[in-house]
Every structure is written in structure tokens, then in C-alpha cells.
């Protein structure tokens, strides 16, 4: 009898707990150490004459990598692209690249990549992307 009562109490407690939504923590939007690290991985500075040239280089390198350009905004220096995780066509990799002028002749380029709505935090991904971008910018410069 006691055992049954115990089970009912536990079940009741679980049910009640299920009702209370967990409150968002205070530092939900705070900048953490990890975020700073990711930002530095995602950002590189290049010596390029003007922003339009840099943007065209970004677009060309994304196309070389097999990405489909979805959106581009010249005034904001924004390029959004995506590709399928070939050979399977169910997973999608998305990337947003922003080009900002740091000083005359220097551009800060930041790339954010997601894999099926999950952010990619692997530094290798960004290294590969920037290596390809460097090649493409260099070719355009010549």
C-alpha cells in the first residue's frame, strides 16, 4: 500500500515539474569565451582594394566550392549561399559571409556556416573556406 502511494507521489511530482517551463538563464545573450573564439576562427582580414572586388571574390570562391548563391546585398556586403552535403541531398550546408571595410584597402571577412541548422564550430571548415577564398582573391587581383 505504501509502495503504491509512493509511486503516485513520485508520478505527481514529475507531472508538476513538467508544467514549469525552465526560465531562460540571465546570460543567454552574454558573450562567452567560446563565442569569442568562434568569432576569431570565422574572421580573417585581407588586403583587397575595394569591397565590391572582395565580394566578387567571395562569390566566385563559393561557386568554386559548389555552393549555390542565394542572396547578395552589395551595400551591406552580405552574401548567403547553400549547398547539399553531396552525395546525400537531404543535408544542407548554409553559409553567410559578410565583407566589411576595416580601413582603406583592408577588408574584414567573416563567414558563418551551418549544417542542417546546427552551427559549424570546427576550425578546419573555416580554414578550408579561407584558403579557397585567398586563392580566388589572388586570381582576381592578377
Amino acid at each position: 500500500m505504501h509502495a503504491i502511494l509512493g509511486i503516485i507521489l513520485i508520478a505527481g511530482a514529475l507531472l508538476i515539474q513538467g508544467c514549469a517551463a525552465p526560465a531562460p538563464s540571465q546570460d543567454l545573450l552574454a558573450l562567452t569565451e567560446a563565442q569569442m573564439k568562434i568569432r576569431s576562427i570565422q574572421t580573417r582580414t585581407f588586403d583587397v582594394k575595394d569591397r565590391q572586388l572582395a565580394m566578387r571574390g567571395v562569390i566566385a570562391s563559393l561557386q568554386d566550392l559548389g555552393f549555390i548563391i542565394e542572396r547578395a546585398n552589395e551595400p551591406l556586403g552580405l552574401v548567403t549561399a547553400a549547398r547539399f552535403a553531396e552525395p546525400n541531398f537531404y543535408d544542407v550546408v548554409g553559409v553567410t559571409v559578410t565583407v566589411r571595410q576595416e580601413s582603406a584597402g583592408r577588408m574584414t571577412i567573416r563567414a558563418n556556416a551551418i549544417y542542417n541548422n546546427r552551427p559549424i564550430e570546427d576550425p578546419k571548415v573555416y580554414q578550408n573556406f579561407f584558403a579557397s577564398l585567398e586563392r580566388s582573391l589572388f586570381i582576381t587581383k592578377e
Partner: protein
Amino acid sequence: MQRALVAGIFLLLSCQLAGCVTQTQPAELFQLTAESPRNKAMETRFFETKDEVELLSASAAVLQDLGFQVEESVQDVGFLRATKERSAREYGQDIGRFFAFILSLGHVIMPVDLHQKIEATLVARPINPEGTRREVRIIFYRVVWKGDGQADRQYIPPGQQKMEMLRDPAMYQQFFAKLSKAVFLEAFAL
């Protein structure tokens, strides 16, 4: 004992089968592959022209001729995106569906491709500092939606998606042939 052994073997086999599904690592997707230069050559043509606006508007006109609707354009970076929606019905699939239905004694109704959206993204850009030479690169891909079906008692709802890049050289050749006619220029391949 024997049952446990059989179960163990099945488990091992199923684990190995799961291993067969190729999963590409994200890092590999940001690297050039052996096919990238070939795809690039297929998707790109060069034009001896200074006039990028003319090249872009001619490209838009050719896409319109091919039945595409231009959805987005950014002139400053020479970018165009166009789509075309069409039926994806194929007789082969309907015949396959019929035979699957007969052979499974009416238990299986395979979903067939119903509708597709073909997308084209095009970028024109100068490739020398004087700006006398420009390349046009176009990439086609499509999304296909399947209809409904049935597997035994289980109803398969419609709307299952399939996506693929279109890598048929004829399609690209056709586009560039039309484009070079439209701008009165010869298109050079890589």
C-alpha cells in the same frame, strides 16, 4: 544461446550497414574536389566585353526565354537568380508504380515525382583589371516533390522532397549558345 548468437550477428550486420551510408564531413564540403574544375568548366564561359549590364540583362532575357522567372538580381555584384516550376511526372515512374502495385498484391503504392522547381543562379564578373574580359557562370539545380503513396496499411503523405544538382552538359551548352547569340559575342570555354 543460439538465439542470442543470431541476434548478435544481426545487430553487428545492421551496424555495418549503417556504416555504409556515406556522411560527408562539413570540412570536406569546403574543399575543392576532383570534380570541381570539370564542373567549373561546364558552368563557365568567357566573353570579350566591357559591358556587364548588357551581359546581365541578356542573361535575364535568355533565362526568360527558357521559361524562368527572375527572382532576385543584384547588379553591383552581377548576380541573378531565377526559378521555373514544372510538373515532374514521368511515365517510367508510373509504370514502376503500377508493377509494384500488382506484384505486392495491392499492398504498396509507390509515391511518384509530382512537381519540381528548377533554379538557376548566375554570376557575371570581370576577370582582368582592365575589365575587358568577363566570365559568366551559371549553376542549375532542382527540388522535386513526391506525391502520396501507401506501404501496406501505412499511408505515405505527399510532399517528400528530393534535391539534386543538374549536371547535364547539354543544358549548360544550350544556355550559353543562346546567350552568345543574344549579346552578339562569341563565348569562350575554359
